[in-house]
């Protein structure tokens, strides 16, 4: 137990420089990108062309004229006080907006995690169970096909099939649980397929090991061997894969959110990029960075529990 706590503490300490690094990177990229948030904000009204003086005044009001390190320092000071700043486009507090949008992202990523884990594990076990037979070959072909389809194509296909043709699910929106089903399938399909392939390969690897041969010699059936003995040892790579996918999903799925009109963290980031709203973007990067670090930490702990031979941090 002690080494787990030490490991967790060390990982959490590492979070600080990692987050500093990624926010610095996001800040630097923002400075390098073309476009000026002050111009964007001043040009909202198509019937009015802002003067250079107006744009300059807005730059000053938004604090964009002070040197970049000072801007970054001020922002970081705010972060330490729990204030992620205000949007450069509409002055709304970044933290408040992210908290407003977070429930949709959590619902979508939570559902997607469940689908990836369930479908990935079930698919992987099934294919390993029928290794070398028709089910295995056909299943792998299906997995590769689904993985090869770009996410947005799959999203439109799902809308066409389930909303337009079968009319069993709503095509877009975030107004109720049913609205999340299609976006969830769209974001989870490729990851679930990859998880199934990964698990199948790991299981087949485990099945060739000595402890499995011994168990088989004792008369254990293939199914029992797979589920009771091989699965647990084969799971860590799949868990790592699922955790990475979950971390990505918590950061928002920009394209899926856009297509299915689910206002979430991803669409917030997309709008921030389009508007060069660097304050909003930095808040988003900080959030996703933190989520990734925590998910990776959780994943490491889970893998160590699944397979005690894994020695954390050693």
């Amino acid at each position, binding site marked *: 137990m002690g080494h787990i706590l030490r490991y967790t503490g060390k990982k959490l300490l590492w979070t600080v420089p990692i987050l500093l690094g990624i926010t610095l990177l996001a800040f630097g990229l923002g400075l390098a990108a073309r*476009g000026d948030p002050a111009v964007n904000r001043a040009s909202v009204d*198509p019937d009015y*062309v802002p003067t250079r003086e107006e744009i300059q005044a807005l730059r000053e009001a938004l604090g964009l004229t002070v040197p970049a390190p000072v801007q970054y320092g001020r922002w970081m000071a705010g972060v330490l006080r729990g204030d992620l700043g205000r949007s450069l486009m509409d002055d709304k507090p970044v933290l408040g907006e992210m908290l407003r949008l977070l429930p949709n992202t959590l619902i979508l990523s939570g*559902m997607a995690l469940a689908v990836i884990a369930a479908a990935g594990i079930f698919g992987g076990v099934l294919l390993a169970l029928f290794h070398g037979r028709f089910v295995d070959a056909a299943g792998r072909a299906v997995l590769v096909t689904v993985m090869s389809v770009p996410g947005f194509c799959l999203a439109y296909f799902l809308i066409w099939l389930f*909303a337009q043709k079968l009319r069993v699910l709503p095509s877009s929106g975030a107004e109720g649980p049913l609205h999340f089903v299609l976006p969830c399938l769209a974001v989870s399909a490729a990851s679930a397929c990859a998880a199934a392939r990964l698990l199948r390969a790991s299981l087949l690897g485990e099945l060739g090991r000595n402890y499995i041969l011994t168990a088989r010699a004792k008369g254990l059936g293939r199914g029992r061997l797979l589920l009771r003995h091989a699965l647990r040892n084969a799971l860590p790579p799949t868990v790592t894969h699922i955790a990475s996918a979950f971390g990505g999903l918590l950061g928002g799925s920009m394209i899926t959110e856009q*297509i299915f009109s689910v206002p979430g963290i991803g669409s917030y980031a997309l709008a921030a990029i*389009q*508007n060069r709203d660097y304050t909003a973007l930095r808040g988003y990067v900080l959030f996703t960075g933190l989520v990734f670090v925590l998910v990776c930490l959780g994943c490491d702990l889970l893998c160590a529990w699944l397979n005690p031979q894994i020695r954390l941090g050693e």
Partner: protein
Amino acid sequence: MNPRKRLLGSLLAGAVSLCLAACGGPAAPDTASPAPSAPAASTPAAHGKEDVIVLAGARTLAPGVEDVYFSHKLLGAWEPLISADETGSPVGVLAERWQRNEDATAWTFYLRQGVRFQNGEAFNADIVVENFKRYQLLENGYSRYTSFRVADLYPGLIGCEKVDDYTVTVRFEQPVPRLLFNMKDYASCIFCPGSWDPETGCFTEQPVGTGPYVITEVKEDEYAVLKAFDGYWGEPAKTENIRVRVISDPQARYAALDSEEVMGVLDLGAMPAALGDELLKDSRFAMAVHTSNITHFMLLKGEGTPFSDVRLRQAVSLAIDRQLIVDQLWGGYAKPTQNLINRMCPDWVELPVEYDMDRAKELAREVLGEQRIQVDMYTRSLYLDRGPYKEMMEYIQSQLAQIGIDATVNIIDSSTYSEMSENGELGANFMTHGMANLNAYLFLNMYLGSEGSYNQSQHLAYHNEYADGLLTEMRGTLDDGRFHALAVELQEIANTQLPVIPLFYDTSNLIYNREQITGYEDFTDHVDLSHLAWVGGV
């Protein structure tokens, strides 16, 4: 219990909770019934009073308190003093009539009586005075639709004073002869006092208007729920409940219509022509084509380029077959034009639209000789959702190649566009421009005036002293007849001098399910939600 088993139990419990939380997300609306329904029967179903008409738009129509209007005019939550009729002429809404003094420095408005706000408070002169005080506080109010610039809308505004309970006078330091155009819709929005900060004029809570619909619920970027206001002074709304959803993706709007989750689409770029045509193959759907104040333009950078020569601009214009663009790419719904100002403007005149490739080649040869020039053409990525912009630019690219201009087609995001535009890096620029308040002077001056905002910002480098003189006279004239004559002359100048190249007038193509709802066809500029009704009645 074994610690591992306990951990496993906790993890399982967590996973189950996560799934339950996911499934128990925001409650589904009880009456909106966004879930898919069976295909409509041929006989219209009877609808109850509580049934909800669900519509969809591409953007949010109720952005909230950060917006100086809180909601788009389309939702009918608030009303202005002045709007425009189908000819583009000013028409009173909360102001019944008006008169001005001789030099147009004092405008008196006679207000409509018997109007109540949605909270029951009476509308009167005191309310208008308070709203004008708010206008003065706003100075430069932010909105997603059109910003509130007091100095432009009410130049030299001294203030608004009450004459009697239903009469106010608005005074200015200088003549404002076209004030009624400036006041159209957004610029004279009226809200019940108390919902804004007396120091800034910004809303602190949802404002109350006098419109036919009350906004009862707003979920930002998701939907707005409207309920008919039973104390409305005008014709009561035909439908009690309307929900307007935000569906940002055009393909998803198409799917929502097809699956009958929504009954109609509305607002800007509601349905691209190609998708609209596809839906119209199905007899359930109809399209209400409304005229729009939006014109599509091609802007050529004149500063330091051969396009400063009017003959080359004319060559470009003559090389473009606008009718072909409209027929082949915009489904025949738009209207080709060479006129700078929009056909909704009351001062608009019809001018010829020419396509003559031989003459275009001749003019280009006069300017370029045997030399070929290169032009980088740009447009913003947001236009791709509104229509086949890329295809149109590619067509123009092929036409320009025939007159010695090698053009490239570039799609860029709005931020990059703004910076490149400011730096004069856009060789040619495709864009739309809406004529929001239908004041011909403002629009003509933007492009034709030597100091015009678009002339400068887009580096058109158009300069015509005669046109400048006409614009100066136009700005100050108090004679409506003379104003119109000047507007016509300037349109003719723009038609031949082409400081910019107009391509076509847009239309607002609104698709709706005609087996479910009616009322989409009634209007010009946009749908009036209070006219929407169920087929077969309630």
